């Protein structure tokens, strides 16, 4: 993949899709490409917020660690999505999350100071970052509601449905979640234990709702999972 291909991905990103051609050229001149191997990090929670990134290749996850060392997966980032956007709003504070590549990944990054200057000329960047933050707030509200009001089975079903919406592929068998997915990762995404996830997934597999392979999940009865997520079963 060459720089032009990366440029096309950045052009489609929610942060920069509406900026004019001259400013986009400036953006591409100032972007640095960072390549990070599987399991390695773009930045760690608490690192100074120096850069904003758009993922161009691979997959990356945003994590937080609790004081007792438990890991929580907040978001999965796919090509075209922005991460580290907080740097634009609060440069030189600390990243609130850790960004870890879950497969070999390449991202284009910009210094926050450069983007702030560009945003003065191109107000759509500020509006887009606000929209991105609004989206995050809605997502966190949904998570909070789920934690307070939903049974753990509902939360697990909802996470699987969201992953299917984002990474799903229809196959003859059902909907394959085309994403390397461990039970531990599901537990970290929905705020429960590995034991609960394993027990729940095994039960659903016995009922014929899912087919679970090594790091692979196929939803055999999509409607059945929707019923569980919505609490209507």
């Amino acid at each position, binding site marked *: 993949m060459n720089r032009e291909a990366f440029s096309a991905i950045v052009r489609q990103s929610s942060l920069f899709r509406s900026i004019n051609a001259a400013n986009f050229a400036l953006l591409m001149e100032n972007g640095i490409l960072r390549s990070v191997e599987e399991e390695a990090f773009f930045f760690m929670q608490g690192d100074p917020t120096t850069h904003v990134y758009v993922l161009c290749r691979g997959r990356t996850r945003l994590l937080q660690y609790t004081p007792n060392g438990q890991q929580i997966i907040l978001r999965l980032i796919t090509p075209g999505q922005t991460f580290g956007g907080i740097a634009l709003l609060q440069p030189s504070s600390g990243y609130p999350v850790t960004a870890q590549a879950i497969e070999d990944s390449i991202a284009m990054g910009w210094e926050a100071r450069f983007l702030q200057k560009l945003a003065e000329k191109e107000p759509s960047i500020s509006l887009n970052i606000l929209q991105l933050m609004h989206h995050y707030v809605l997502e966190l509200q949904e998570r909070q509601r789920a934690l307070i009001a939903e049974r753990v089975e509902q939360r697990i079903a909802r996470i699987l*449905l*969201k992953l*299917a*919406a984002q990474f*799903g592929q*229809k196959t003859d068998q059902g*909907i394959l979640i085309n994403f390397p997915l461990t039970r531990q990762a599901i537990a970290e995404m929905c705020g429960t234990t590995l034991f609960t996830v394993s027990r729940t997934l095994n039960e659903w597999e016995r009922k014929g709702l899912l087919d679970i392979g090594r790091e692979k999940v196929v*939803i055999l009865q*999509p*409607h059945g999972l*929707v*019923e569980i997520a*919505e609490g*209507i079963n």
Partner: protein
Amino acid sequence: MAFESIRSWTVADTLNSYPQLTKLFVEWKTDCIGCYLNRFCTLEEVAAIYSLDLDEVFVRIQSLVQIPKERIEI
């Protein structure tokens, strides 16, 4: 036979092409509106899951929207 191609429309395609059909999914009391998986489920699958008569589904759709002939026939 004339309805073969509608049969395989996904809910997402249907609603993107004809947003006015939203009210039919509400009327049928399906959970399709806002469902994470509506880009995967076809009208045929929706009819089967909710025990709807497929021909009746097509008749109701065509009573609300003008579907170009080439989208209806095989």
